[in-house]
């Protein structure tokens, strides 16, 4: 062979051998987050690639609504299906599992999960099988402005029962302070009230029983009573003016500007109230306190039952085995610690509240760590269709547009139509 042929053969040989050691690509789809968080994850991806040559890790981000809109189509096509994707658990995750898109990774992730909070681990299981790994947990609590409370003569430590809360609201109103800010324009902030009331009145089995159809399902006394209590609160007119059109971010900004005394919100509230405020500065953290959602006298729920998100990453059925490997790598304690120190979220690890540096987040994490029962957001747990109905009726009941009975019936109808 001539020199030219040799050279060509050499090039081909190299090319083909490179193909033989072809990179496996692990794609991870995530919801857009703030720059710091994204930078951390990109770093983790790089670390993994360095430790495992021949594997490429691509982390992609999509905005919330875009993520939800695109995921069904992405899962349909092999070439676009990510190996791992972010999930809020609940009904959507179950639907994805039922359609056969998820992989049972119970054996593979057992090691990592041994150190994670059991409530979190259970949330990322379908039919008892792990389909991914939990990432973080959250809690919805009442955040309050200490100075405004003082001004009205309200003591947060004394708000133990629902009636105490109503009394506090009245005192705040008498002092000319808007008691509560809520972003009812987006509906889901209001459903936190309804959800907690159901939990406090019906106890930890309330939702599961309703789903199973026990005792009239969602039309049970628990749900109707919850609606009545919500209406009771709303009738006192505790919310900011125009609350029906206020968006979530605006609402946190209202609190941040010191124009409202309380907001019932998840832990991400802490990072939001400052940038969303008109002044840009928000309330200083030492002026913000938290207290758990009060119990309802005569109800079965405990004050230590918590409502909050459990988020994780799920593994798709066609993911390469490197994907699960990466997932375990990603979930290492050291990264979770780093993220906890930097960000305003609580990793799913046992004792993670100790890692959290931010004092306010720490308080929230401690609340979570002491939980007796942790419930995922109702609108996640019940799936997208029933979830939206719960959001809708929460606002409708609060605004007096519908009766608690009709609201409960609407939820039941949506559940039946699934």
């Amino acid at each position, binding site marked *: 062979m001539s020199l030219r042929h040799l050279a060509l053969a050499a090039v081909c040989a190299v090319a083909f051998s490179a193909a033989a050691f072809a990179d496996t690509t692990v794609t991870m789809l995530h919801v857009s987050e703030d720059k710091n968080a994204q930078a951390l994850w990109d770093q983790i991806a790089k670390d993994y690639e360095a430790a495992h040559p021949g594997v490429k890790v691509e982390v992609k981000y999509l905005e919330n609504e875009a993520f939800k809109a695109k995921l069904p189509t992405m899962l349909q096509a092999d070439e676009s299906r990510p190996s791992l994707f972010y999930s809020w658990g609940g009904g959507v995750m179950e*639907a994805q599992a*039922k359609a056969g898109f998820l992989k049972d990774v119970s054996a593979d992730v057992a090691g990592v999960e041994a150190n994670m909070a059991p409530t979190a681990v259970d949330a990322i299981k379908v039919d008892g099988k792990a389909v991914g790994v939990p990432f973080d947990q959250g809690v919805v609590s009442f955040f309050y402005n200490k100075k405004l409370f003082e001004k009205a003569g309200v003591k947060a430590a004394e708000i133990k029962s629902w009636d105490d809360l109503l009394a506090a609201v009245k005192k705040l109103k008498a002092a000319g302070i808007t008691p509560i800010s809520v972003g009812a324009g987006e509906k889901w902030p209001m459903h936190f009230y309804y959800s907690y009331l159901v939990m406090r009145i019906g106890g930890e089995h309330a939702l599961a029983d309703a789903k199973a159809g026990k005792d009239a399902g969602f039309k049970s006394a628990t749900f109707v009573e919850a609606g009545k209590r919500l209406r009771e609160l709303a009738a006192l007119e505790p919310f900011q003016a*125009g609350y029906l059109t206020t968006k979530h971010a605006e609402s946190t900004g209202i609190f941040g500007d010191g124009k409202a005394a309380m907001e019932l919100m998840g832990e991400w509230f802490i990072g939001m109230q400052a940038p969303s405020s008109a002044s840009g500065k928000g309330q200083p953290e030492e002026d913000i306190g938290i207290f758990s959602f009060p119990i309802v006298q005569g109800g079965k729920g405990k004050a230590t039952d918590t409502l909050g998100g459990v988020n994780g990453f799920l593994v798709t059925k066609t993911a390469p085995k490197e994907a699960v490997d990466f997932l375990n790598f990603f979930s290492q304690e050291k990264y979770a610690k780093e993220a906890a120190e930097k960000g305003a979220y609580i990793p799913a690890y046992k004792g993670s509240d100790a890692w959290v540096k931010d004092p306010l987040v720490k308080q929230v994490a401690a609340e979570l760590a002491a939980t007796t029962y942790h419930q995922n957001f109702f609108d996640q747990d019940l799936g997208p*269709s029933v979830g939206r109905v719960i959001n809708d009726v929460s606002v*409708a009941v609060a605004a007096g547009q519908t009766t608690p009975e009709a609201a409960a019936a609407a939820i039941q109808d949506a559940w039946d*139509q699934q």
Partner: protein
Amino acid sequence: MAVDRVALASAPAGERVDASLETAFANAPAVYVATRRRMSMNGWATLLVFLPPALLLFTIFVALPMVEAGWYSFFNWNGFGRPEKFIGLKNYVWVSTNPAFTRALINNGLIIVASLLVQLPLALGVALLIAGRMTGAVWFRMIFFLPYILADVAAGLIWRFMLDGKIGLPAIVTSLLGLQPFYLLGSTDWAFTAVLIVILWKYFGFHMMLYIAGLQGIEREMLEAAEMDGAKPFQRFWHITLPLLGPMIRLSIFFSVVGALQLFDIIVPLTGGGPFDTTHTMVSFLYYFGITRMRVGFGSAVGVVLFVICVTFAFGYRRLFMRDD
């Protein structure tokens, strides 16, 4: 070819082509000309080259998906995997018994009425003013067309701020009158009126452009001749301009109604269908109650209902008003 050019120039524009036909026919019957002729070899060759691309693209990307989407309407399906739960006409029952859908239907009707009574006359009025040679006419045309170009996400956002009860226009009005702030977009009685105003703002420029085109097609000589004959401006408008604009107005109404029925993009960022489902259109209802709730079959059922309404309108309208098109 002996064609009477004088007759051409002075005949009303709408019938010009026919006039030439008749004249040509009268003068030279052996040279009867038809706009569409019997097919020659050349004709067939043209047909087989020119038509297939359009037909192919349309069938693959529009017709087939449409039919499949219609097929989904008989299933209870969340969009994952393949549709499995066949439920016959249940989706249609659920659609028709959903009060939000009935409201959406009424809303669509109101949009059509508002378009016909307010938007189109406004567009026509403005077009009359700036079709001519007034100062800055070109700039005005661009300004009025601009809302159509602006993406809905921005338009919805800005209008949400503008209509806000605390910091928007209603706030300015209420503070001037010394009243309590009024939350326009949160009011079940008035939110939809606000939505209508935004729709008006967004689309009247498009129709204005159609009318300007129509107006500019009217022969100057005709209007000048009429003026010289002593016709007043209103008479000129009523007897010459308006009839000549007829075809353009009919087309504009057609686009307007069909567009109104398909309206969706502006509702999402503006009100999201709220408050309490009073500002939905049929397509926004489809989006919120079908797609985002992962009830694909339900959404398809709404789509099919909408399609049937549109088709009924389209064919009825063409038969009644656009027979020569």
